[in-house]
Structures are given as structure tokens and as C-alpha cells.
């Protein structure tokens, strides 16, 4: 099993290739959307690259859950994720820092859950 450092290096390389960013921008804390400029289609590209790089299969929605806060999800009221919604996030995104999000659960903050560290933690469990 690769070490945490090895996983981080490969994730860094993946994000540099997928997002056209510099490697020093890819820190563990960096958020994919706000800091690294990822758009929706980039998530698919990142999943493909991680699969090739780590020789694993990542089923749809496992790393990047879809429709987390869509209008009909029932998890959002007045632009804020409800307690049930936060619980849903915890179950679907156990590698993300949902505690930090829960302190200010505005819908627009959901994107901050997608960090480099989240990908690394996901891979550590997957490869473990």
C-alpha cells in the first residue's frame, strides 16, 4: 500500500494535469472549486485520472457525490442545509470535513467540502 506522501504526490500530479494548476497550488487544504478552479466536468476527468494512476475503480458518486443540494433534495431550506442534509453529507462524504461545514451550513459552502485532503483520505481508505 502506498504511503500518505506517495498518495499525495500522485493526487498532486493528477490535479496539475486535470486542472492546469501549478504543483505548489495543490496543498492538502486547497479546495478544488474555489482555490483550484475546478468545474463540474473536471470531476469526471479527475476520477478517470485517479483510476488510471492508482489502478482502481471509483464507482459513480463514491468520491464526488452528485446532486447534494439540488432544489428537490429536501435538504435545503432558505439557502441553508438542514440538519438532515448535514447528516446526509456525513454519510455520503465521510472523508470531508463536515464538522467545519456544519458550523456555517450555507449551500454555497458545500463546495468547500471538496478539498485535496478529502481525495487523499478517500484514497487511503480505498487502497488500505
Amino acid at each position, binding site marked *: 500500500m502506498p504511503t500518505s506522501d506517495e498518495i499525495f504526490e500522485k493526487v498532486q500530479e493528477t490535479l496539475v*494535469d*486535470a486542472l*492546469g494548476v501549478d504543483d505548489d497550488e495543490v496543498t492538502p487544504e486547497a479546495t478544488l472549486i474555489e482555490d483550484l478552479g475546478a468545474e463540474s*466536468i*473536471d470531476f*469526471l*476527468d479527475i476520477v*478517470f485520472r485517479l*483510476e*488510471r494512476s492508482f489502478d482502481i475503480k471509483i464507482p*459513480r458518486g463514491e468520491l464526488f457525490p452528485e446532486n447534494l443540494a439540488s432544489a428537490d433534495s429536501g435538504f435545503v431550506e432558505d439557502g441553508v442545509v438542514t440538519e438532515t442534509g448535514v447528516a446526509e453529507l456525513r454519510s455520503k462524504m465521510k472523508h470531508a470535513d463536515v464538522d467545519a461545514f456544519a458550523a456555517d451550513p450555507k449551500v454555497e459552502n458545500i463546495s468547500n467540502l471538496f478539498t485535496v485532503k478529502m481525495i487523499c483520505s478517500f484514497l487511503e481508505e480505498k487502497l488500505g
Partner: protein
Amino acid sequence: MIGDLMRWYWIDRFVEFDSGTAAKAVKNVTLAEEHLHDHFPGFAVMPGSLMVEGMAQTGGILLGEKFNFEYIVILAKVPKITFHSWACPGDSLFYSAKLLDAREEGGTVEVTAHVGERLVADGEIVFAHLKQDDPQFGRIDQKNFVFSNNLMDIFESGRAGDGVDETPGGNPSE
């Protein structure tokens, strides 16, 4: 659909098609195409963007065929493309696409463009899949479609054969 208004073909014919794996198409560059008159005056070369479109059509149809054209295939992203040389009127550009990933959500192809042995371009293209009944369908910019039904005519290209009448003494020009 864009295919009903115009036929946006940037490949002339498939020359190899290995279902689910790889495809190769040819694009014959000709001065009869008006875009070459201005690109550039006195220095006619095939625009890189149209080569990317040709490579995307080659790879997009390869991906679409793998799933029996169940999905609309959309050119979503070109993560990497490098132009090494160019193609002029009279050149035959051969676009090769190799399927790297293919799944329900979309796929990735590795592509090259060659004139003879000379590498003209290489890169990667990512496609997203949409179902016809997807609620996002109407919001998609139609220019991003790799193919609509009319583009599927490309599979008929070349079927006309060479016109030689093979009956004894036959000659189609007579």
C-alpha cells in the same frame, strides 16, 4: 439540432474502427474549403481548432458506438493538446483515437493527427454523456455536440465504392 441545419463534418471517412478500443479517420484538406482562404492569406493551413473538432468526432463516435449511441456525446474538455506541425491543402490528415476510459458518465480518448508519418498534433479529449431525457439537455450549447443523428452519415462515407462496373465489358461512363 445542429445536424438538421448544417452538417458539421470534420472527418471524411473512417479508415479503421475497432469497436470500444480505437478508431482512425481521414480528413482531406482542400483549398475548396473557404476557411483556408483566410487562414492565412498566402499561408493556407488547417486551423488547429478544426483539427481538434475532427479528432473529437473520431473519438466521440468511437465512444458513442461503444454504448450503441444510447447517450448524447458532448465534447466537455480538452485537457491537453499540442500542435507539432501543420497541415496544408492537399494533405490527408489521419486522426487516431484510442479509448482510455468509457463509462456511464462519459469517457476520455487519447488522440493524434498525422500527415503521413509526420505528427501534427496529439492530446486528450474528455466527453460527457447526456441522455435524451436529461433535464439539462436544453441547457447545453449545441456547438458542443460531437454528433447528432445526421453526423452518423459518416458511417456511410466511402460505401459508394469506386464506381467501377465489374460486369464484363462494363464501364459506368458509357
